[in-house]
């Protein structure tokens, strides 16, 4: 079972150690990857196997528009992202609270989902997560602007020619990314993100574990964590940046596995 229609979209799902709903005693662990070039493989290659090896039920899926999931022309707002997650849990008959492990935008989804459906979330691990608070949509718009300037400077034709000098893998990745970025409502939807009111984030009570790279480019994450999620436990991994999951895999793996074990022991 690797394809599931949730919220009207075909999602590529890997369900490890599935448990029948009637026998489900522990929170399943759901992995949420980041935006753009990312897909579930970044968790499948790093942390998910170690989590599954402990016997935990684990769910990985490609967000809409990413990896091997459907890439519809519309539906890339945060509201769509959390509706997809809710729809997937429904489709898998997961009614108990889950642990959400989110990398980058995946962490942002985890927080928004928990704010909207607190009864469905047992705990959260944030890896280099952004916070959907005032100013975040503007940061995405600015990033989009920077990329557009680079493309404009190079010229679309030159860019395409340059990409095609690489092999199959890079061409496929860049073609998918280009379609998502230029021919869907991906950027317009992201840049009109409605910020969560800070008090709603502050009201989250589920346990939260946070991991950031020392050279993280997430603006003010320590300040945001302190202000919004003061009960979160933070680890800053030295000498790595936003790609801490890939660049410090053993540390992140250990943090996630230990944290999940500590949650089960509570």
């Amino acid at each position, binding site marked *: 079972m*690797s394809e599931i229609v949730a919220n009207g979209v075909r999602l*590529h799902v*890997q369900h*490890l150690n599935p448990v029948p709903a009637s026998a489900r005693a522990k929170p399943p662990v759901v992995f949420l990857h980041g935006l753009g070039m990312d*897909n*579930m*493989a*970044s968790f*499948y*290659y*790093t942390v*998910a*196997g*170690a989590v*599954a*090896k402990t016997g935990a039920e*684990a769910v990985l899926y*490609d967000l809409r528009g990413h*990896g*091997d999931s459907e890439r519809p022309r519309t539906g890339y707002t945060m509201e769509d992202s959390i509706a997809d997650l809710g729809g997937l849990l429904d489709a898998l008959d997961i009614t108990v609270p889950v642990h959400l492990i989110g990398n980058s935008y995946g962490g942002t989804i985890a927080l928004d989902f928990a704010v909207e459906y607190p009864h469905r979330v047992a705990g959260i691990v944030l890896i280099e997560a952004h916070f959907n608070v005032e100013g975040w949509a503007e940061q995405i718009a600015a990033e989009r602007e920077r990329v557009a300037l680079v493309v404009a400077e190079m010229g679309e034709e030159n860019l395409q020619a340059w990409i095609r000098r690489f*092999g*199959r*893998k890079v061409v*496929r*990745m860049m073609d998918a990314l280009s379609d998502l970025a230029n021919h869907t409502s991906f950027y317009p939807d992201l840049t009109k993100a409605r910020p969560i009111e800070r008090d709603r984030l502050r009201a989250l009570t589920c346990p939260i574990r946070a991991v950031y790279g020392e050279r993280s480019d997430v603006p003010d994450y320590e300040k945001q964590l302190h202000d919004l999620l003061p009960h979160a436990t933070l680890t800053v991994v030295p000498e790595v940046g936003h790609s801490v999951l*890939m660049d410090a*895999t*053993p540390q992140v793996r250990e943090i996630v596995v230990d944290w999940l074990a500590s949650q089960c022991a509570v």
Partner: protein
Amino acid sequence: MLEVVRAIIAQIVGEEYLLDLQIAMDTSFEDDLEMESIEFVKLGARLTEHYGGNVDFAAFLADLDLDQIIEMRVGTVVDYIVDATA
């Protein structure tokens, strides 16, 4: 067993793409086949469908570091399946 793995790779990347490529034990997923990471995940899932739950790709990868996964050759997967289904 190599033939089964070859057939599943062909399903995922397309028979057409493989026309010029021989898949042998020392074929690299990254350099020779240029498979995307998500295609490698699908390969694992299809192998489990074919051979049953003892072929558990996620658990197999859990013991490897990223470089080992990226540099993996077809033979490593075949050897793993032989072990797992023994």
